[in-house]
């Protein structure tokens, strides 16, 4: 079992989460070229090693998370909310608490 430290719920089994996919993709603007959309939708680096990916805490707080995980060892290096505003709010709260 992989254990994921959800910033909202604490450390939980990965079976509470659903895997989204490659979290490094920048989806292009809606009116971007066909080629840009082709690459975002179909093409992957498929890294063997640490990759940024999305997970959904679907049986928990239902938040989307961005996780750095090693695809060979499954070791998790970082977890943060996928929403940049929430991530910023959380980190400033942590700083204020210190």
């Amino acid at each position: 079992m992989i254990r994921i430290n959800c910033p909202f719920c604490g450390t939980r089994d990965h079976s509470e989460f659903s895997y989204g996919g490659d979290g490094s993709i920048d989806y292009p603007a809606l009116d971007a070229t066909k080629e840009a959309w082709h690459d975002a939708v179909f093409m992957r680096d498929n890294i063997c090693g640490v990759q940024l990916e999305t997970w959904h805490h679907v049986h928990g707080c239902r938040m989307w998370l961005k996780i750095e995980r090693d695809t060979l060892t499954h070791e998790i290096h970082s977890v943060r909310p996928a929403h940049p505003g929430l991530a910023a709010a959380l980190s400033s709260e942590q700083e204020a608490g210190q």
Partner: protein
Amino acid sequence: MTRFSAWSVFKNGLTGQKGWSRQWRDPEPKPHYDVVIVGGGLHGLATAYYLAANHGVKNIAVLEKGWLGGGNAGRNTTIVRSNYFRPGNREFYEHSLKLWENLSHELNYNVMFSQRSHISLLHSPGAIDAAARNYNILRRTGTPDAEIWDLATLKRAVPHLNYSPTSRFPIMGAAVQKRAGTARHDAVAWGYARGADKHGVDILQQCEVQGITREGDSVSAVETSRGTIRAGKVAFAVAGNTSRLWTMAGLGKLPIESHKLQAFVSEPLKPLLDQVVVFGIGGAHFYISQSDKGGMVFGGDLDWYKSYAQRGNLPIVQDTAEAAMSILPCLGRVKLLRHWSGLVDMSMDGTHFLCKTPLSNLYLNAGWNYGGFKATPASGWYFADLIANDRPHEKIRNFDLKRFERGLQIDERGAGPDPKLHG
């Protein structure tokens, strides 16, 4: 190398089994080969065999980083069928099945191909209608052994499934392909290796490709753990490791993700199940057959997150065991002997790639999802044809990397561009 025959088996039986020789050589790498195939799994070995046997290509090497058949070749659940429906796949898998039917003779090696029927269980009138539509396509396009069975027929053939009308998904019938079945995966790898070796192919084990040397838009050599090997043409057939080789060649991204799929085998039992049975509905996915040694061989879904680790995780063990119990409750007391996992190359539409690449003398065989065992003979056949003639055969025209740019997805499941959802 001794040719196998009834007479040679009989003679060796009388002479203490002393007359057998090595089945293939263990040569030192030569500095140059006309064709270097990376990956000594089923597809690499079959490709080498057909390159030599069908196209008369000499001076071929197969490079394998571990031992022959140590990848998915020796890890799959050995199901062979041709009930695919999308144009392109239809003809490809039917051709493969026809090659399977003669494979033991072709290779003079018993691959134990057993056409014991592939039974997909159906659980609703809608599912029966959809299956009837699909299986009619099979019957109209050269697969006459596709049948829809009603409940009474199914009960006669497989009496010990859970037929309870109050189960969560009551069984209502089945879609059956009768020429489908199983084969012995190791024997397929060994048979192709032996056949290729007989034609002079060098099979180099413990020979890992660690770098690709390019000269402009072509590959000039591969750097391996056993030294530099120069190559006229290079072909990748490395399943879940494709993206790593692709990166070594400096080629960027691919429409492929590597995932892991588990499989399971039980302690040996007396004959229990004569067919391959598949159960798939409402999030459950389960397939089972019985090996010749008596073990129940089964599997389910992949582990749902991307991985290069060849080891499985526990939630899938539980899911698969639950599916087993709901369909074959008689397995409840049976002990699990082993379970393992393989590194599968999941593609964006669930269909494979057999194609040329941006480099002029590099060829790609990848994207087999869970389904590349059955594809082995046709994959080797058409990949060899592609390498020998440097152009795709009409039959594999759409198995190229550019199909998504053309708006074409060959998506049997209709799951969309999410690799983990194809299976």
